[in-house]
């Protein structure tokens, strides 16, 4: 008996020793019951770090550093998804001279899974976006922009579903009103539809028809406003099925994400990671795996 125990312990130890951090994490977190969501917003073509000077953002940010950090996290975690909440374009001459193709190439190389469009992503016009999009190997989600009869028709998606090793993640977006914010020549016949209504409809569909376990909204509405302008806080409080809102537009640095009660009294997480790639937002979401019988509503863990 003693000998058996020894073999067991030694066996476990050797498993632990022979696996890397990722392996240990998999064992500790019952393999794929954990999702790591990384996110950025408003990185505004900040390819290189800010110049080193006396300003507040001196030497912060930088795509190569961000990619290095993503690599490190991916070496430690099995279930990593990366999103961006828009305004990828505009802010450094990289955009003015190369029209955004470098930004998209880098995001593709970093393994972004999806992004949404911010108002500044129209700054090169519809054709500018279309040209740059050739270099994007990830999807753009624009749930409440209607691109019918424009050159972007069919080039973005209303939603996306990612099967993250069994965890079904539904992605939708909430996009900002363009009128008054972007020159009409730039967005042409793009129609802005009610973000709250469309996000809710899509979230319902993802949850109930597509049976998604977790619903993420990539939002470029902005964190919150003093007036009536629709924001992430408005959306969260008027939603039913959204679990997480990854925000942008207002360049908000938060100490921690907000937890807003939705229409059903359920918590919705509202987060945003500053701007310019100064931060990489990270959420570690732990799930309980449950099973459902076809003939009953009872469940067991």
């Amino acid at each position: 008996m003693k000998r058996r125990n020894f073999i067991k312990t030694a066996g476990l130890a050797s498993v632990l020793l022979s696996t890397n951090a990722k392996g240990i994490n998999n064992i500790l977190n019952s393999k794929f019951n954990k999702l790591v969501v990384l996110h950025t917003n408003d990185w505004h073509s900040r390819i290189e770090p800010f110049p080193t000077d006396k300003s507040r953002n001196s030497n912060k940010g930088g795509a190569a550093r961000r990619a290095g950090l993503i690599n490190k996290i991916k070496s430690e975690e099995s279930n990593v998804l990366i999103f961006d909440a828009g305004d990828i374009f505009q802010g450094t001459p990289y955009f003015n001279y190369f029209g955004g193709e470098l930004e998209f190439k880098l995001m593709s190389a970093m393994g972004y899974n999806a992004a949404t469009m911010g108002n500044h992503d129209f700054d090169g016009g519809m054709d500018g976006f279309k040209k740059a999009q050739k270099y994007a190997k990830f999807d753009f989600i624009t749930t409440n922009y209607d691109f019918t009869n424009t050159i972007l028709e069919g080039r973005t998606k209303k939603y996306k579903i990612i099967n993250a090793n069994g965890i079904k993640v539904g992605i939708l977006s909430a996009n900002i009103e363009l009128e008054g914010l972007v020159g009409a020549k730039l967005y042409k016949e793009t129609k802005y539809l009610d973000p709250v209504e469309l996000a809710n409809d899509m979230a319902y569909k993802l949850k109930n028809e597509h049976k998604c376990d977790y619903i993420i909204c990539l939002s470029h509405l902005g964190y919150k406003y003093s007036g009536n302008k629709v924001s992430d806080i408005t959306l969260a409080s008027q939603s039913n099925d959204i679990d997480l809102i990854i925000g942008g537009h207002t360049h908000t640095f938060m100490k921690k994400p907000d937890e807003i009660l939705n229409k059903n009294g359920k918590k919705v997480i509202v987060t945003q990671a500053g701007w310019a790639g100064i931060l990489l937002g990270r959420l570690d979401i732990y799930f309980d795996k449950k099973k459902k019988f076809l003939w009953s509503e009872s469940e067991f863990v």
Partner: protein
Amino acid sequence: MKKLLIYIFFAGTLFSSCKSYYTVNKTENQYLKIDKKLDSIKDQKIESIIAPYKTKLDKKMNQIIGYADYLNKARPESTLGNWMADAIAQKASELSGEKIDFAVQNYGGLRLAEIPAGPVTLGKMYELMPFQNFLTILTVKGNILKQFFDRMADYGGWPISKSVKYQISGNKAKNIYINGKPLDLNATYTIALSDYIANGGDRCFFLKNQKKYLTDILIRDILIEKVKEENAKGHHISSKIDGRVINNGK
């Protein structure tokens, strides 16, 4: 006993084939800083994608387009702000052929605290004005302008061209003079500014529905043009504080 085991096995098979789903147990959050501490793990592949773009861009951006005397940004009035607003006013009237009463630039739109004395690169102008803001000519009545001046006063003073003089008292503008004459609430004025403000940006929503002419000239290109123009004449870009905006406090 054997039968029971078979049942358990059977039940187990059923369980494993039935639908599984996930509910959130807990969520942890971090905002990870992207700074020089990550230099040791920088992604080399990303750097190699950037490299050819950077080489091309640096060559363009390091081009010297002129020379400057020291200019800095401050409120209510500053040398950098005055230089910019004057340049915009000059170019706006040259380009539109209209008489421009004054030009104004929102303070937040100036993205450099200073321009050091010496050579000015093209890149410096991009840093000063990274946004794609287009020159807009606005025709507006004096009573709307009063609201605009009050808004500027509330922000502590915005860069404005030399034809204007006013004072800030608390968060209001007073003693407003345009071309040496007091602001006439009933008169019509022509002003030059960015599309961002003309479209109601920075809480200037009262400008939103005014008669406007949107050009396709970037404010940045106006500044670049001005630096080159001065350089061609052998001049530095320079400016001085001349009491356009005075803050009297409360």
